[in-house]
């Protein structure tokens, strides 16, 4: 029987949650016994090669590219996990949610105290994905099946959750692993 497949992605996140995945250290050897990795920055597979059992999503949706990737994950993965506070609540990037988009861009590229931008232009290359009006938690865009809080969730949290999922056990975190920071 073929091993189930896992995909991962980082949307509007800092890759910290992916670092935490890697922090499972030598247990990654056990993990590859249990699963194959499909689309993921860990193996640099850019597009889905087939259907996955689990999709792990770091980061919320800040731009159209994030939305497209998230929808793609929903399409290809049976179970989707919001990994970390950004996926769950928008996280730090969502601090811009209380500020109009134009003001955010002006501050970032024109008015900010550390900005040096003699051209006075806000980057607008056609390749740059358009920003959303605000940062959206993943579950407000597609249906998410599980949430693993933390900034980042610890390696133990991720490990325990994955093992529970892959062995059909209920995903229950011990108190010590339950953190929002």
């Amino acid at each position: 029987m073929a091993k189930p497949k896992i995909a991962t992605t980082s949307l509007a996140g800092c890759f910290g949650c992916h670092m935490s995945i890697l922090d499972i250290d030598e247990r990654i050897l056990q993990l590859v016994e249990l699963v194959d990795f499909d689309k993921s920055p860990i193996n640099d597979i850019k597009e889905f090669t087939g259907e996955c059992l689990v999709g792990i999503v770091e980061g919320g949706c800040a731009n159209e590219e994030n939305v497209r990737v998230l929808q793609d994950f929903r399409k290809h993965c049976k179970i989707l996990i919001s990994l970390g506070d950004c996926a769950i609540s928008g996280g730090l990037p969502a601090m811009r949610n209380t500020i109009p988009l134009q003001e955010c861009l002006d501050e970032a590229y024109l008015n900010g105290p550390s900005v040096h931008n003699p051209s006075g232009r806000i980057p607008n290359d056609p390749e740059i994905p358009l920003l959303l009006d605000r940062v959206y938690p993943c579950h407000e865009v597609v249906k998410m099946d599980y949430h693993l809080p933390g900034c980042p969730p610890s390696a133990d949290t991720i490990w325990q959750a994955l093992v529970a999922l892959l062995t059909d056990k209920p995903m229950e975190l011990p108190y010590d692993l339950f953190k929002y920071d």
Partner: protein
Amino acid sequence: MNDTTITFEIDGIEVHGREGQTIMGAADTAGIYIPRLCAFEGLPAFGSCRVCTVKVNGRFQSACTQPVAEGIMVENDTDELLEFRRNIIDMLFVEGNHYCMFCEKSGNCELQALAYRFGITAPKYPYMFPADRNVDASHKDVFIDHNRCILCARCVRASRDLDGKNVFQFVGRGPGKRIAVNSRANLADTDLEVTDKAVEVCPVGAILRKHVGYTVPIGQRTYDHEPIGSDIEANKQ
């Protein structure tokens, strides 16, 4: 037991209280934890957060305000009440802008600790991301971050009843209700001092002392290992 002892039940367990005591007070003594946010020992009961909602003889009441009475049957740890309480915690999370990941109060925050205790991985309600919550950093030793305020009035009561000052009070109403300070604009223009009780009692990170953030490492903070309420539950005979 003397004549003034009042006997009643919480979830079928016999509990004793005194005349004038609240259900919460008697439960604490008995080692039964009733979750709470606005209630704080030494401050008059306020009854605003509603996290301590219990059922008394079939009627919903806040345990922090409801006095004990002979023979009452109190429900506390039921699926129905746990669901209602969880909903209130969720409401408070989505109502404000709570960024636990960088909040100085994280690990010592009672709202966060309740969410941990209830095992909330994500709120069931959509985030509101209110844009009208500002930060008042005018005071040299203390700041107010309205993004995190849960309107529990602990600061209002502590300033009035313990500090004898009246630095804080609510303004506005409904979803627009806010904590205001006793000056035209800024905390700096009030007589608040860093040693005031009002500064200490905030359950969340809305009123914090400056210059002392992040001093306790992760792993040693109040709620890192034991759920909120464990101290009360340790009283259980």
